[in-house]
C-alpha cells in the first residue's frame, strides 16, 4: 500500500512552532480559508470547487429506476466518492482507503441523513418508478481539507442540477426532453456545509498555567499530516447541526468544541451566501435577456 510522503523533521518542527506562535506557512490567519472558487459547467449539475490547490469536481446525474422494495415512496439518492491516484500517490484504484471511507460517510451523514434532498419528491409511481439521483465526486487535486471542499461541491452541484420534467396521464409516465419542457430543479430543503477544525495540541496562556487548544481551519495537506486530531462539524445556516464527528485522536477540551461549533455557524453562513451568489450569477448568465429575448422575433443576422 503506497503511503503519503512524510514531512521531514525540520519541516514538522518549523510548522508546529509557527502554529504555536499563531503563524501559518502561507501567511493566513488561523481561522482563514484559502481562496475559494466555484464554477459551474455548461451542463446542469456540474460543480468545480477550487480551494487553494485542492480541486474537486462533482457531477449529478439522474435516471428513472425501480425504488427499493422496503421504501416504495422514496427515490434513490447516492453519493459516490472517488479518490483517484491522480490526486495523490497514496490513493489506489478499487481499494478504498480510510480517508475515502470517512469522506463518503461524512458526506452521507451531512447531505443524505440530514434530509437536505427530499427523497420523497423523487418518487414517480409508488413502488414502480422513481428517480435515482447520483452524485459522482472526483478529487482532481489533493492539498488538504478534502471534506469541506467536497461537501461544498456536492451541495452546489445538487442545487445547480435540473432533472427532466415529467407528467402522469392515467397510467402513462412521460419524461420530457429539455427541448420540450424546461428541466426542473430538485426539491431542496436546506444546505448543509462541513467545517473541519484541525487541532495541534495545547499551549499555555497566562501565568496560571491555563491551557488553550490550538486549532486551524482549512488545513493544507502538510498541516493535515501534522495535526493531532480533527473535528468536523456540519451545519446549515439556520444553526442546525447535521453531524459532528471527532474520530478519536488527541483529547480536546469540551469547551473548545463548543466554541468551535459557534464559529462554524459563522463560516457556514459565509459558505451559504457564497453558493447562493454563485448560483444567482450562473442563472443570470444562462438566461441572457430573460423572457423578452426569447419572445423577440429578431435574430442575430
Amino acid at each position, binding site marked *: 500500500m503506497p503511503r503519503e510522503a512524510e514531512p521531514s523533521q525540520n519541516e514538522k518542527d518549523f510548522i508546529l512552532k509557527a502554529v504555536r506562535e499563531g503563524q501559518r506557512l502561507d501567511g493566513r490567519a488561523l481561522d482563514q480559508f484559502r481562496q475559494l472558487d466555484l464554477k459551474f459547467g455548461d451542463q446542469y449539475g456540474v460543480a468545480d470547487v477550487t480551494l487553494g490547490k485542492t480541486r474537486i469536481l462533482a457531477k449529478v446525474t439522474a435516471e428513472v429506476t425501480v425504488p427499493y422494495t422496503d421504501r416504495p415512496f422514496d427515490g434513490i439518492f447516492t453519493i459516490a466518492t472517488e479518490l483517484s491516484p491522480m490526486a495523490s500517490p497514496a490513493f489506489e484504484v478499487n481499494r478504498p482507503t480510510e480517508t475515502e471511507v470517512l469522506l463518503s*460517510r461524512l458526506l452521507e451523514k451531512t447531505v443524505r441523513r440530514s434530509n437536505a434532498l427530499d427523497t420523497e419528491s423523487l418518487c414517480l409511481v409508488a413502488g414502480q418508478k422513481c428517480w435515482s439521483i447520483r452524485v459522482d465526486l472526483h478529487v482532481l487535486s489533493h492539498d488538504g481539507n478534502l471534506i469541506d471542499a467536497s461537501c461544498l461541491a456536492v451541495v452546489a452541484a445538487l442545487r445547480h442540477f435540473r432533472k427532466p420534467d415529467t407528467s402522469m396521464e392515467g397510467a402513462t409516465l412521460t419524461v420530457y426532453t429539455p427541448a420540450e419542457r424546461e428541466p426542473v430543479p430538485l426539491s431542496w430543503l436546506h444546505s448543509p456545509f462541513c467545517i473541519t477544525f484541525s487541532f495541534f495540541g495545547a499551549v499555555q496562556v497566562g501565568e496560571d498555567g491555563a491551557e488553550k487548544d490550538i486549532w486551524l481551519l482549512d488545513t493544507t495537506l502538510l498541516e493535515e499530516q501534522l495535526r493531532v486530531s480533527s473535528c468536523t462539524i456540519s451545519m446549515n445556516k439556520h444553526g442546525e447541526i447535521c453531524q459532528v464527528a471527532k474520530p*478519536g485522536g488527541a483529547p480536546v477540551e469540551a469547551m473548545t468544541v463548543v466554541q468551535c461549533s459557534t464559529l462554524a455557524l459563522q463560516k457556514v453562513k459565509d459558505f451559504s451566501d457564497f453558493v447562493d451568489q454563485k448560483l444567482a450569477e450562473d442563472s443570470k448568465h444562462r438566461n441572457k435577456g430573460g423572457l423578452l429575448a426569447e419572445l423577440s422575433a429578431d435574430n442575430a443576422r
Partner: protein
Amino acid sequence: MPLDTSTYNLALLRVDGRRWNELRQQKAQMGVQPSADGSAYLEQGNTKIQCIVSGPNERDTKSTSSASTAPTSGGQGATVAVSITIAPFATVDRKRRGRNDKRLQEMQTTIASGLAAAVQGQSYGPRSTIHIALNVLSQDGSLLAALVNAASLALVDAGVPMTDYLVACTAGSTSSYAAADEAADPLLDLNTQEEQELPFLTLATLGATDRVVAMVCESRVQLARLEGMMATAADGCKGVRDFLDGVVRDKGELMVQEGAVGRGEVVGSMDLD
C-alpha cells in the same frame, strides 16, 4: 413504532422508567476468556459486548486486513487495530452484515484512534500491534459507547499501559430539531427506542476529565442544545469511569484473596492497594 415522548413531560420518567440523568444498569467482568491476553464482557442495559485483546504482537497484515488501525505516540509506539463483529442475532430482525459496511468501518476507526490516544504505546516498538476484537452480542442503543467501554476494560485486563480509562456515553435531547423548545431536557444513556426518535451524540472522554477524545453526532439538532448534551454526556462518562474502576478494583481484590498476588505487591506497574 414511534416512541411516545408526550408522557415524559408529565412524570419526567422515560420509557424504561429512568430519570433524565440515570445510566442504565451496568454489568461487567474482566478476564472472561482465559486463553486471551485480555478480555472483558460488558452490559449496558440490553447492549452486550464481548471484547478480546490479543497482543502486542508482531504486526500481522493478514489478521488486520479488515480491522481499522491507528498508531500510538505519534507513530513511535504500537499500533492499535480494532475489528467489530455484530452477531446476526444481536438485533430483533436477524440479518447478516457485510464485512465492508462503511458504518462499521467508521466506528472501528473512531475506536482505534480514540484508544490510541489513551494507550501508552511507546513501551512497545512501532512494529507491534495490539489487536482488539469486539463482538456485539446484543444491541440496544449506545453501541459505540459500550464498545469503547468494553475495549477499555479489556485493555486494562491485558495489562496494556494507559493514561486513563477511555470512557464513552451517549446523551440526547427531548426536543426534536424542529421545535424551538427552550425547556428541552437532555437525556443520558439512550436505548434503541430513544435513539431512533431523538437527536443524540456519543462522547468519549479520557477518564473523569472534560477532555473529549471522540465525539459523534449523527442527527439534526439545534446548535443551542449541543452544550447541554455534551455536559450531560461528560457527566455520564464520569459515572461509567467510576463503574469501570470499581470492576477493576474488585478484580484486584479477588486476585489477592485467591492468592494470585500478595497484598501490597506491585504487579508490573499496577499497585493493587
